[in-house]
């Protein structure tokens, strides 16, 4: 089952756990989204911008030095080469065209590391829409460069000082804003999270990653890969990378979460591996929480993985055994980042570096496998963190 049921459930996960105020907006969004499925003008416009503005298709690059080092055949899907430096723009572009179609004039978004915020501010500048980004006060401090980028493109950035002052609080604040201004505002959620239809919609906008990669790998290697892997925060790059391989049962799908300081430390963000079913930000998913249902703080060196929940479709794929979920620590991720930089001359985002770190685990991967790894973003934004640790 690839699509959720009418209430937005992928198996046992998903749904629309939101206040009644938002239900009409979600219904309108669902209707508009269904409407564009065979709207050739919409599809053509999206393709136009993806090609000319974003720079798609992104290369599938055979990383020969890394392959040699790891005794694997490793192909990197270069989402880091997209305009704005990450996969996030695939989704923001799709959603802003939808917002335009629905006649909305104002866009809001949440952001953690600032990548989704930048991708949103970018498309808002492109389409001449008013843009307000919610960002935790701690993240604003940690990611000041991205804040400057957003502001330069005309977005306003609201500092969120409630709770842990990070992504989860920024998300809560964005949902509240949406409830207040739902009539003229569209909320661009950055990951395959939130109430239906967001997880479906974000996945589909991101699925261009695997659509291209599948053609590219067959073209370059003559066959399907043995393994497709990606890092997992909320799950947007992972689902985009997995989607067109879901039915290819010989292809192993590997997701890599952030183990932070270790899975037994309570300082991690491994919602799939360590969470339990719960309701957070509009959907039932695998949530890091205490025994009373209070949401726990996640921890990861990479701000983009620092979230206590995970997309409902990934929860379903894990539960049904289609997805294998692993977790690597902050330290391992830094090592993965360093290795790629030294061997291939590519500085990956710390999020992506979690997937890279798993490449040296022969027990999990086995030798001589053909692997596609989603290089979801570039690491410029993380240079300070990397410099402090490596």
């Amino acid at each position, binding site marked *: 089952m690839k699509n959720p049921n009418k*209430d937005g459930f992928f198996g046992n996960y998903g*749904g*629309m*756990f*939101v*206040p*009644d*105020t938002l*239900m*009409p*907006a979600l219904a309108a969004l669902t209707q508009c989204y269904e409407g564009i499925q065979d709207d050739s003008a919409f599809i053509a416009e999206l393709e136009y911008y993806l090609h000319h503005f974003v720079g798609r298709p992104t290369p599938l690059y055979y990383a020969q030095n890394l392959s040699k080092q790891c005794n694997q055949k490793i192909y990197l899907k270069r989402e880091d080469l997209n305009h704005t430096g990450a996969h996030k723009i695939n989704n923001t572009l799709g959603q802003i065209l939808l917002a335009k179609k629905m006649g909305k004039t104002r866009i809001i978004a949440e952001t953690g590391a600032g990548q989704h915020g930048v991708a949103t501010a970018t498309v808002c500048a492109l389409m001449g829409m008013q843009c307000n980004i919610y960002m935790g006060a701690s993240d604003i401090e940690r990611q000041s460069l991205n804040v400057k980028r957003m502001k330069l493109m005309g977005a306003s950035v609201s500092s969120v000082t*409630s*709770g842990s002052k990070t992504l*989860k*609080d920024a998300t*809560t604040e964005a*949902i*509240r804003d949406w*409830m*207040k201004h*739902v*009539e003229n505002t569209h909320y661009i959620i950055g990951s395959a999270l939130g109430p239906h239809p967001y997880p479906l919609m974000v996945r589909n906008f991101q699925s261009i990653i695997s659509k291209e990669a599948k053609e590219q790998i067959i073209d370059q290697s003559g066959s399907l890969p043995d393994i497709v892997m990606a890092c997992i925060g909320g799950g947007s790059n992972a689902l985009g990378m997995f989607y067109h391989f879901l039915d290819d049962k010989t292809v192993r799908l590997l997701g890599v979460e952030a183990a932070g300081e270790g899975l037994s430390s309570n300082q991690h963000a491994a919602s799939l591996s360590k969470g339990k*079913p*719960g*309701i*957070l*930000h*509009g959907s039932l998913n695998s*949530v890091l*929480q205490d*025994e*009373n*249902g*209070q*949401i726990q703080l996640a921890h990861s060196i990479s701000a983009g993985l620092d979230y206590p929940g995970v997309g409902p479709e990934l929860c379903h794929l894990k539960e049904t055994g289609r997805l294998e979920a692993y977790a690597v620590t902050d330290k391992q991720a830094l090592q993965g980042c360093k290795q790629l930089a030294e061997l291939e001359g590519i500085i990956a985002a710390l999020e992506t570096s979690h997937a890279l770190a798993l490449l040296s685990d022969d027990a999990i991967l086995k030798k001589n496998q053909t692997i596609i790894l989603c290089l979801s973003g570039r690491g410029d934004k993380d240079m300070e963190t990397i410099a402090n640790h490596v």
Partner: protein
Amino acid sequence: MSNVLEKAFKEKALIAYVTLGDPSLEDTIQYCKALIDAGINIIEIGLPFSDPIADGPVIQASHQTALETGEDVSVKSGLTLIKTLNEYAPEIPVLIMAATNLIMQFGYEAFFKQAEEVGCSGLIMPDCSIEMIHSINQDKPSASVPLINLVSPLCNKERLRKIVTQSQGFIYLLSSTGITGEREAFSAELSQFVNDIKQIKDIPVAIGFGISQESHCKKLSKFADGLIVGSHFVKLMQDTSTVKEGIDAVCNRVKQFKAVL
């Protein structure tokens, strides 16, 4: 529908929202008793949640305060409070308002069973749409504790019918979420909305969100069966230096509001 709830709506009901454990569990008990003494008709106990998407900043801060005390502010503790209040004033219905996740983790079946035992008059899950309640209802053995649904004025006729038909207890109608000026303009529409609800089913309608003035109470009570006051009371408690002063300030407001209903 629970009998006490039905009786409470025999007159225009004033409903107060109280966060469990803000600033302490003992204070919450004293505060609720004082509200009852001041003439409140219904009490809604809000269970603190780390990430309340349906509440505004004032109530979120209150949740945060309660969570930070380190006291037990779980579902179980909420049910214990209801038992205490029921012993104090069995005629005053006490409701629980909680994020769906809190009830889910406690267990829906366990919740309804224990809620009935302590005499809880209803459950409000503000982040649970009617479509989702349907999936929960399958676990719910009896209708002894009503699930109270929220309706926003943006709700279309078809959905309104669905919600009202399935509703028990009363309908929790949201005023607007905008600023005060907008709210004044809203009331004409709200009265029509209440009419629409009553046409579908004869069920009490209580209006909540942003009620803070006698003028609001006067205006809205012309067509609503009850008024719910949340942030305004929570803020009064936050703005006073001692709990006692806060309780006095709120009880004073309760009397003023009741006088114009």
